[in-house]
């Protein structure tokens, strides 16, 4: 791991339900992404804290409680729907052929040597132009019901992936996979239609137990009895934990999967649904929960002063917020110089300082966060400077002047006035929009703020029915720019189209290796940045609070629930329970 210990300092700001949509993006790509940067964080001393010994050896036993915003809806990775589905399905309950990791600014994939969640011992490219991949799997793997995990499970999973009745959100994994063939029980071959950089990541889907689901039609998979009632270990899983009980709308309790090695240290991990941010914070402070993800910037000071027993960790640079300009909604946005002038008028560092976010966010310049070693270009994707004088000059050269001296620019009698929409329920974006409103007002731009309920907003964005929008994306760890910037794609909200960029994206997508593609991606990103269809505002960390009672967590860019089998609690019961674990007996129900 490249990054060493790092101490988080005081900051303030807010992150709430707004990253909702962002997290979806993340969970969808999650199968391909893994690993990440490790930040060990230290925080606070113990005022009235009970004696804890985080340096002591990990002890088995005990229960950890995690607060989540919304309940799980289905415990299956390939049809994941809610954030928790993606997290549990991707990181906790299922293994995959290879497990991804984020190392030195690149996405890499680990085999079983480095990560127990990986099924494959090794893999190799073969065939004409290396368009096939052969995996040799561990032969000692068992599903939680005792059946062996074989190559057949993988072939089955990829077989049903693109069934229309299943409507899997990750079916694009199969886009270039011609066939998956079983060589023997522990060897499987993937044949691709062409050589491309993301081949390996597209094999990293979490396989399902074929012996359970074989007789079920893909459309009926969601109604399979073990899916509908996964409690008491009914759901057959491959990962370290399985579902012990599930009280809908309240909590999911995970218990150890006896057939996963290394056996998890915790007896139980309880995910409790607590939707309200204030309540979640209070429960963390009073010690009723041990891990709380998505703490808002405004809540950090209270935690630092009032909760000595809680440490703050973060998922680095996972999100960026931007302002998108829609020329269809407001004609002057068609001019890229006007868009640039709008960006120049925003003082991002000042905004971050004002909202006490500077510790958790850095100004953003383009679609790639600085965590990408090969893709980030500090020159071509540099954040815009704050230069209101230049902004005014550009606007004036475009004919925008204040002819009636009411403080608002106008041209041909039309004032420079438009609406900035953002989603309701996200305090950070509400705050940011109010500061930007003032900063724009200083160069003579009149912006009206409008918060829309998230679902309504996404509908408006899809229909291109908005003028400008303050919104955010999570940073996908794969470099593909096509979904957001390809001409005419659904998520290209600003209807951005530049033949040069289209050509560069096309080139990048047809390269054989990541190294070869990186140059094109970087050039494409720089070309997009030059056109300023967005004003990129800042890259943002997700802040998570962890009780010092809970140790062994690994929270980083990838997410908060990695290596769950290594988590342990400092007040774990003594050795007898440990012996029980070692004997492989299931956890207490």
């Amino acid at each position: 791991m490249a990054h060493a210990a790092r101490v988080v300092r005081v900051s303030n700001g807010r992150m709430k339900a707004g990253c909702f949509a962002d997290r979806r993006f993340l969970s969808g790509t999650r199968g391909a992404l893994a690993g990440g940067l490790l930040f060990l964080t230290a925080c606070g001393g113990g005022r009235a804290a009970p004696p804890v010994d985080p340096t002591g050896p990990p002890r088995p036993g005990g229960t950890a409680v995690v607060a989540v915003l919304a309940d799980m809806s289905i415990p299956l990775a390939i049809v994941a729907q809610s954030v928790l589905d993606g997290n549990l399905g991707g990181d906790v309950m299922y293994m995959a052929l290879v497990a991804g990791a984020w190392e030195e600014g690149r996405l890499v994939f680990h085999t079983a040597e480095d990560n127990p969640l990986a099924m494959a011992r090794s893999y190799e490219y073969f065939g004409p132009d290396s368009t096939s991949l052969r995996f040799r799997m561990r032969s000692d793997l068992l599903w939680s019901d005792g059946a062996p995990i074989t190559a057949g499970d993988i072939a089955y999973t990829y077989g049903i992936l693109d069934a229309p009745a299943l409507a899997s959100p990750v079916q694009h994994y199969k886009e270039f996979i011609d066939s998956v063939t079983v060589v023997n029980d522990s060897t499987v071959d993937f044949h691709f239609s062409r050589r491309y950089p993301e081949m390996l990541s597209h094999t990293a889907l979490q396989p399902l137990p074929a012996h359970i689901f074989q007789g079920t039609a893909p459309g009926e998979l969601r109604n399979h009895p073990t899916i509908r009632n996964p409690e008491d270990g009914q759901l057959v899983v491959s990962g370290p934990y399985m579902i012990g009980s599930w009280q809908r709308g309240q909590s999911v309790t995970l218990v150890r999967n006896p057939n996963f090695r290394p056996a998890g240290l915790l007896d139980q991990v309880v995910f409790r649904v607590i939707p309200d941010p204030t309540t979640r914070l209070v429960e963390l402070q009073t010690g009723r929960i041990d891990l709380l993800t998505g703490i808002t910037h405004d809540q950090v000071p209270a935690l630092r002063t009032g909760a000595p027993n809680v440490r703050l960790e973060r998922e680095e640079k996972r999100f960026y917020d931007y302002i998108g300009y829609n020329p269809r909604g407001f004609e002057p946005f068609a001019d890229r110089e006007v868009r640039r002038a709008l960006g120049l008028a925003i003082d991002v560092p000042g905004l971050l300082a004002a909202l006490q976010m500077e510790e958790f966010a850095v100004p953003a310049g383009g679609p790639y966060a600085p965590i990408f070693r090969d893709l980030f270009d500090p020159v071509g994707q540099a954040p815009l400077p704050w230069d209101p004088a230049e902004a005014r000059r550009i606007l004036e050269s475009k004919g925008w002047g204040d002819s009636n001296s009411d403080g608002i620019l106008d041209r041909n009698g039309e004032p420079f006035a438009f609406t900035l929409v953002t989603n309701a329920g996200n305090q950070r974006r509400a705050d940011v929009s109010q500061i930007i409103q003032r900063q724009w007002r200083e160069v003579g731009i009149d912006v009206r703020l409008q918060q829309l309920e998230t679902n309504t907003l996404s509908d408006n964005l899809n229909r291109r029915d908005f003028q400008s929008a303050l919104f955010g994306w999570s940073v996908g760890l794969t470099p593909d720019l096509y979904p957001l910037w390809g001409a005419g794609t659904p998520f290209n909200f600003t209807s951005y189209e530049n033949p040069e960029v289209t050509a560069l994206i096309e080139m990048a997508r047809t390269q054989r290796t990541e190294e070869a593609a990186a140059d094109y991606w970087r050039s494409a990103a720089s070309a997009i940045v030059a056109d300023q269809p967005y004003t990129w505002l800042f890259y943002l960390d997700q802040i998570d609070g962890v009780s010092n009672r809970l140790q062994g967590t690994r929270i980083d860019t990838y997410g908060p629930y990695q290596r769950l089998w290594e988590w342990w609690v400092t007040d774990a019961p003594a050795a007898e329970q440990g012996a029980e674990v070692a004997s492989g007996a299931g956890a207490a129900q």
Partner: protein
Amino acid sequence: MISYFLRRLLGSIPLLLGILTLIFFIINIAPGDPTARYFNPNISPEVIAQMRTNLGLDQPIHIRYFKWLGSFAQGDFGYSFGQLRPISEILPTVLWNTLQLMIVAVVMIFILGMLIGIVQAVRQYSVVDNVLTFFALFFYSMPSFWLALMLILIFSLKASQWGWPIQFPASQMTSVGYEFFSTGERITDRFMHMILPALALGVGGAAGIARYMRGSMLEVIHQDYIRTARAKGLSERIVIFKHALRNALIPIVTLLGLYLPILLSGSVLVETIFAWPGMGRLIVDAIFQRDYPLVMATSFIAAGLVVVGNLVADVLYAVVDPRIRTE
């Protein structure tokens, strides 16, 4: 009598149908889409189209309405888009969770409210009356979510920071590890989880009841038969509790029906803040997720509760007021 209630019940059918039709068209015409949960650039539009077909959203709205009406008439609420299971499986638990909270709140509202109201009426315009009026109004005038946040901050956070002997949990119905508790511990645990949300839900209502009780009591106290009772030399306690209270209760009892929708409205925010897995939260989540079948089902239950509440009020009215029993 029974035929009267049957007629009332039958009469409420077009009423429910009307409101459900209204809700159906509002929610279906409104912007937003159930597949917005997959707001993810990596998911291709074809997949979204598949999902919409699977959910039956590709059909025109009037077809969907009649389909919904058809299955609804057969007692089939459909399948929740968000929770991916039949709604008939979801509702009973959720409804029971809310009812528990509401019953506790209602009992609290009526006992507390009536006691305060009686004291106020008996001592009209006294210092006690004014002080009680003011305090009751103080809580009545507080936004329920604000009261809920304050309760959490004081009785959960501060109680823990200051080491109070009693600290209340701020979320959910039970503690972690509830299934290992003994019966006694379970009852205590449930009780502890119930108190704060029931207070947040009920305190305002209690103040409201107190006001009605005061008015109703005042009205009765000034009637001739009370004067007669006093003239007979009955003790004040008997006059108030035996003669006055019984008649003063009549209008109060009808409020029971009126309080159901108010409590249900209140439970929307209170359940969200206290992470209580009940109807109020379910309805809001369903609306925000555009989970159309769940919105329809919960709307039906909500409106149905109100109709039942009104019927209950009528029955109670007949029980306490002998005059209408004979009609």
